């Protein structure tokens, strides 16, 4: 990255065999990742999964225990953060309190001796609509404004790769939606490569071209948001991205088209193309919004799975939809989301109901549901090394 020049376009990022060990625990076991240039990539996962560590490794704020990092084809593993063509929008913004907003934004430009830093800084501030506050101090701004300044400060340097560390966490819902759109627009306009780290799956799915779900230092699944959502590979992804109804049972029949699974006496069919395993004990699932609720036993249909009868044990109204919890004997509790097409719930607490869904909507996992609990454990990692304790805790908060 030569001094005084902007990157001509976004660069691609490649992580090869990355491992990061801290005294006392391993944050990242083995990570291989390739992010194409110009894309908006989201790294999604619960706190403690290693996503922030990954970000810091790319930024150069941490050194990997093993592995290589390549940006635009160049090996930057041994380069310090001030040598890399990477900028970060920090979760805490980290705006320099002793400088004005303008000086903050111009900081990187000045360090690289780029011409006319003031004009360029104003331009960046105009992009985030904060030019009128250029001479204020960061502490005089609201949280949302600080976040936009932090964004401007990073973007003004036209880095080949822009890293965003949960930047929208502190914003209220409306502002967050606004910023999500703005970020996406800026990214497409300027053509930079964005790597966005977040625990908010809705945010990741809205903004990113590609999403990678990370868990315990490994990437569990990577792909387009729809792909991850409709065809999760592991129980963790199925439960982390939205909610799932998962069933475990032996495969009792399989054809080239579909597999049949025995779920506590009821037969559930899953398309073979959507099932990762075709023999033995498998875990299959279906999304709650794909289920239809019936008050009487539905007529058999070769294209649909039917499950029931069950008893409604909870009805939760949430504006757009209503969530039903249905207890099916010997199977467990199912979640059903029904869009509120009419006033009032379809079924009341205590009603006997049946559920059905299109066979095409089911999916089969690669691993076992029994490995992952239904409601994922939300603890922060306990055994954190003392020397990284405080910094990691602040990074890993927010789940």
């Amino acid at each position: 990255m030569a001094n005084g020049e902007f990157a001509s376009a976004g660069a691609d990022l490649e992580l090869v065999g990355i491992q990061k060990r801290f005294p006392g625990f391993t944050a990242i076991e083995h990570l291989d990742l390739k992010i194409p240039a110009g894309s908006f990539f989201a790294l999604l996962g619960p706190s403690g999964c290693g996503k922030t560590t990954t970000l810091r490794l790319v930024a150069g704020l941490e050194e990997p225990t093993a592995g290589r990092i390549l940006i635009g084809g160049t090996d930057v593993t041994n380069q310090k953060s001030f040598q890399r063509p990477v900028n970060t929008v920090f979760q805490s913004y980290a705006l320099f309190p002793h400088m004005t907003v303008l000086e903050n934004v111009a900081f990187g430009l000045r360090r690289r001796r780029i011409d006319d830093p003031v004009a360029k800084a104003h331009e960046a501030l105009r992009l985030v609509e904060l030019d009128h506050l250029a001479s204020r101090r960061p502490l005089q701004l609201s949280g949302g404004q600080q976040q936009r300044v932090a964004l401007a400060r990073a973007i003004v340097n036209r880095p080949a790769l822009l890293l965003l560390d949960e930047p929208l966490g502190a914003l209220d819902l409306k502002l967050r939606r606004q910023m999500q759109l703005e970020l996406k627009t800026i990214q497409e306009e300027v053509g930079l490569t964005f790597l966005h780290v977040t625990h908010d799956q809705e945010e990741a799915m809205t903004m990113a071209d590609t999403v990678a779900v990370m868990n315990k230092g490994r990437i569990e699944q990577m792909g387009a948001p729809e792909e991850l959502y409709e065809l999760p590979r592991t129980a963790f992804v199925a439960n982390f991205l939205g909610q799932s109804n998962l069933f475990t049972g032996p495969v009792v029949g399989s054809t080239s088209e579909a597999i049949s699974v025995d779920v506590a006496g009821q037969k559930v069919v899953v398309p073979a193309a959507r099932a990762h395993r075709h023999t033995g004990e498998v875990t299959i699932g279906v999304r709650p919004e794909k289920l239809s609720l019936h008050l009487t036993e539905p007529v058999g249909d070769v294209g649909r799975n039917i499950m029931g009868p069950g008893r409604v044990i909870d009805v939760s109204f949430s504006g757009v939809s209503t969530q039903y919890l249905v207890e099916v004997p010997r199977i467990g509790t199912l979640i059903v989301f029904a869009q509120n097409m009419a006033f009032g719930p379809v079924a009341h607490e205590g009603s006997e109901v049946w559920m059905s869904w299109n066979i095409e909507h089911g999916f089969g996992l690669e691993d076992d549901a029994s490995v992952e609990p239904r409601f994922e454990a939300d603890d922060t990692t306990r055994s954190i090394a003392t020397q990284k304790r405080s910094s990691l805790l602040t990074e890993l908060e927010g789940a």
Partner: protein
Amino acid sequence: MAFAAFSTSTTTPEPAPRRKSPVALLLLLPGILYLVLFFLAPLVSLLLTSFQAPSEFGDVGQYSYAFRWENYVDVVAAYWPHIMRSFGYALAATVLALLFSYPLAYFIGVKARAWPLLQSLMLVLVIAPFFISFLLRTLAWKQLLSDESFVITSLKALSLMAPDAYFTGTPLAVIFGLTYNFIPFMTLPLYTTLERLDLRYLEAGSDLYAHPFEVFRKITIPLSMPGIVAGTLLTFIPAAGDYINASRDFLGGPDTQMIGNVIEANFLVLQNYPAAAALSIILMSVILVIVSIYVKRSGTEELL
């Protein structure tokens, strides 16, 4: 300011809104009255004394009230070099103390954050010199740097010092003594500020292409300025008025007398109270000017 180092809580909870109550007066009055009586009144006394004239038919040491402002002229004329010397030595000692203490405070406050017990123990070592009498500390250096000492004889043997040169009794020795004695005063405020430094600012600076030295110059130093100012004030002010280091029985010589020595001599030996008082007022005025500049910029809330 400096003494937040002694507070034990790391987070300050949301302060309760201050109440208005007659209890406040009850709590304040005894202490404030005491200070008025034994701090303000003596200063006024000093001012009045500085204008006194020798009594008509009195002995040495007998004065009566007058408005003899010529006292000030006499005193400045007689002791001009001492006044300049005091501020010069104090300034030198302050700068040296800053250069010495900053890296030390940085290490304890920033680098050693992961080991709070180590931090505490190092701080104890920093203030440990306070536990040995100020006079004995200075005397120890006098012995250690006297002509016959191991240090000086070694330096001469290694040709690092001229054979007829000496250390004690020179301005350098006085400045050395002043610096040593005030290092804790400089280190503690620096430590307090550096301990609170949010390292994420340094990371942001590095992320934005600043070399480590640039990070230090453009981010660390400005953000540690409150500590630097506090330490500088806490060092310069007492150093200017010190007279132990410069005393001939300690590290000083015939040409290193500071304003404090002169005040002591005039007051206790010559019994020339007006002269001593005038010098004290001059010293105090310079200090008040410095303090008022500081207060004007930072307000009075931060003082304590």
